[in-house]
């Protein structure tokens, strides 16, 4: 179990940092981005281990990630997405949507349908987590919400 946890920490840190380099994150935020990504992945992995379902896992993961990214972006004075996007790589439904398409093209229709529903649930869960983190941070810091101000 301890071995599993250590392996997951190392792997999620590595994947966050490498994806950050591929998408050209500023050098100063690389290490912090890796730590933020590790926090998010541990939330996702821990919940999926207890069979919490894709929606709840994505929601909690995105909430943890966004809270950590908010703190990091206040520390570094950089936009939120610099920390948020690299950490989201393993969780974001890109890989599941690719799998769903592959199942569709190899005539596994029920698997494909299941995959697409998973993709939608995961995407909605990630959004809900992000919005929830924004609301929490706004309550704490009376900070501006995502999106434009009301006219």
């Amino acid at each position: 179990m301890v071995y599993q946890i250590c392996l997951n920490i190392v792997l999620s840190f590595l994947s966050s940092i490498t994806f950050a380099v591929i998408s050209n994150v500023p050098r100063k935020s690389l290490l912090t981005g890796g730590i933020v990504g590790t926090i998010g992945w541990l939330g996702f992995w821990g919940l999926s281990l207890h069979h919490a379902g894709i929606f709840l896992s994505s929601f909690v993961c995105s909430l943890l990630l966004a809270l950590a990214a908010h703190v990091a972006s206040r520390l570094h004075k950089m936009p939120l997405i610099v920390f948020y996007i690299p950490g989201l790589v393993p969780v974001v439904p890109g890989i599941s949507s690719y799998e769903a398409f592959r199942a569709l093209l190899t005539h596994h229709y029920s698997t494909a349908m299941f995959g697409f529903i998973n993709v939608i649930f995961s995407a909605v869960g990630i959004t809900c987590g992000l919005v929830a983190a924004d609301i929490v941070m706004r309550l704490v810091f009376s900070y501006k919400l995502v999106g434009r101000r009301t006219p």
Partner: protein
Amino acid sequence: MTDKEIILEVSLLAGKIMLESGAETSRVEDTMERIIRHALHVEQDTTTYTYVTVNGIFVQLDHSKGTNFVRIDSRGHNLERITAVNQISRSFAGGDMTLREVYESLLTISGEDSSYPLWLRIICATVLSGSVVLIFGGRFVDLPAGMAAGLLCYLIHLVAWRVIKASFFAEYVAAFIGGTLAYCLTTVSSGNLDSVMMGAVAPLVPGIAITTAIRDIMAKHYLSGLIRGLEAIFIAGALGTGIATVYYIFIL
């Protein structure tokens, strides 16, 4: 140039750099309005309008002058440039920079490419493939095959993108060739083909596009969100088709 033309030019350039680097449309609008409002010295302006979609930026400073717009053709992901433009607009709004300085630093940003060398990005894509193979339940036996296939996939995508400039075809070719290598390597080492292929396409999957699409829709920019979401679906479809071709040829 008159004052207003310079303001228009600066805000359009800032928006263009951010959109080409893959920022959300609401952030682009916010940055442009910040620049315009500070340059015109007004708090709440009712005659200025900005309208940003994924393919174009429209700005109107004043009713009599008409509307100016630029078209956005290519989009990549470069968070460094988004951060830099954000920093510049923030220090301009704070009064630390003049409009002329903002224009010059924006021009330097728009000229430069990524600050990471190409070899480092290729190595990172390889490591990303390896860690995705392990994180999604692959065994250590699959690691070399996944890393090799991921490296080949990323390289082919880079080359195909440079040579033919056809966006979905580049992903298709990369997934097909990477998948073929993954199939050959896993038959030799009798590994798990599914997790190896997942790792191989991991650097190419449209994760950022999906996230940005959702955030655009949450900010009520429905048009941009739908366009980006459609792009993500097509990229995932191209990758899936490439891998499915491997299945059709070798397995079925």
